[in-house]
């Protein structure tokens, strides 16, 4: 068990003739949490989608938990133990319980029951809401449904796309706290965010700018580096790019 959880090397992704990821390389070791930072449109979501197999890699290689999955279907990647929480994160018209069950579809009924109990133990608030349409819940509860849905399959890697989207600061703090708990369980995390608060829940970070990785390192290295600051406030950083 020494292989990395996620290994992306020199990946390129394009929509038609619009290239959105260029030469992206990134390694996430098992049991660590990595935060992908970047502005809107920088390519964070695209990277996650490429890892999940929604978008094909035009160039480069990709392996998950030691398996080369460049050609593998999304379903195969999910079976390997990869779980993905999109920005939407759930099926709005379906009930909370149906959402959770879909998180581990294909599992034996008795197992599903156990996992449901587990999920309700972690988020007891959801018990009362289990028959309600997931889309009718509050933003914070929806994130909890999304996270529990992803955990139902007992994944070893969890990818999350902007878990803070649409949440008020109070709920953002809650989500971060939950991620902190998850880290302790040894789950590998890859979280794409605009919100820098999530650094608190990560070991490593990388910064994506215009489809390229402009920084990669530990949180400590990041704090010494001006790149992060530039990606968001980038008053001087971009000028350097432009003049070069």
């Amino acid at each position, binding site marked *: 068990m020494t292989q990395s959880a996620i290994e992306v090397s020199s990946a390129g992704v394009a929509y038609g003739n619009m290239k959105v990821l260029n030469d992206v390389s990134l390694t996430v070791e098992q049991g660590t949490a990595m935060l992908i930072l970047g502005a809107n449109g920088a390519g964070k979501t695209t990277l996650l989608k490429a890892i999940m197999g929604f978008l094909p890699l035009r160039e480069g290689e990709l392996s998950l938990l030691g398996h080369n999955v460049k050609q593998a279907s*999304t379903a195969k990647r999910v079976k390997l133990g990869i779980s993905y929480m999109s920005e939407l994160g759930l*099926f709005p018209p379906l009930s909370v319980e149906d959402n959770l069950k879909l998180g581990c579809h294909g599992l034996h009924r008795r197992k599903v029951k156990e996992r449901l109990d587990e999920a309700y133990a972690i988020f007891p608030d959801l018990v009362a809401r289990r028959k309600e349409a997931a889309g009718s819940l509050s933003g914070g509860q929806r994130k909890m449904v999304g996270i529990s849905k992803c955990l139902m*399959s007992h994944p070893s890697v969890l990818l999350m796309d902007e878990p803070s989207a649409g949440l008020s600061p109070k709920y953002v703090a809650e989500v971060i706290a939950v991620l902190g708990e998850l880290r302790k369980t040894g789950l590998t995390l890859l979280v794409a965010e605009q919100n820098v608060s999530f650094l608190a829940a990560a070991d490593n970070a990388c910064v994506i700018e215009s489809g390229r990785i402009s920084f990669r390192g530990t949180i400590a290295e990041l704090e010494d580096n001006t790149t992060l600051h530039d990606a968001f406030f980038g008053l001087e950083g971009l000028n350097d790019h432009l003049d070069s």
Partner: protein
Amino acid sequence: MPNEGKLAYLLFEYSIIAGVLLGIFYAFLSMGLNLIFGVQKIINLAHGDMVMLGGFGAWELYYTYHVNPILAVVIVIPFTVALGLALYYLLIPRLSGATDMETLSLVLFFGVSQVIEALTTLGLGNNERNLPINSIPSHPIHVLGQAFAAEAWVAAGVSLPLLALFFFYLYGTPLGRQTRAVMADSNEAAAVGIDSGRVSAISFGIGLALATSSGVMAIFVLGGVNPSEGPGLTIIAFAIVVFGSLGNPFGTLLGGVLFGIAYEAAQVYATSWSDLVPLVLVLGVILLKPQGLLGKRTRVV
């Protein structure tokens, strides 16, 4: 001799009861169209032709193999599912990824509809097919002192349990749950590892099977089937599905019953105009409330 007020009341009562019976059948007839739309966002314009095929199937089964039509309702299902899977894998993979998918799929299934109609006519002739009314229980049933044709009860009586079965499948089984997941958001479904191609193919088969098995009863309700009535049935099914909201199976149930009542009322009060009912309904609904009765406005623009 009842007085005029009494007569009017009886007519009203008749059109409501007969309408509900007819409506249950039409809800069943339309359900497959909605399922296929919900899963694949495709309007199956060959839907009415599948209904027609079901009728012809029942006719063959009755005269060649002496199968009771009520049994035929069930027998046609596995054959249609198989046909649906074959059609799905033959047509859909080439279509997905096209730029104007919606219109192209519409035209494509229009072509399928033409082929089915032509093949049926070539193979089985252009005649209307009937089954003897005594092949199903045929005593009129009296309710509130009025007689209602037996075939209306049989059609509703066959449709109702099959609809219940369908709802159980959709809401009570893992595959049904996956189907609803794909209907809700196919990307999200892919994200949890659902093979949405497989789910779509199965739904396509089931959608067609719902059509053919309703077609068996259509022989009795419509007084016969002929190869060219497919498009007309497709329009009715579309009217009902849109009326209730595309993609919502409960809406189709509601739409079917309301359609049945409207149709029977028109039969009672303005017989020669009753064929206009589905057309006026479809135009009225898509122009005034395109999201349907149970629909929420989801798209801006």
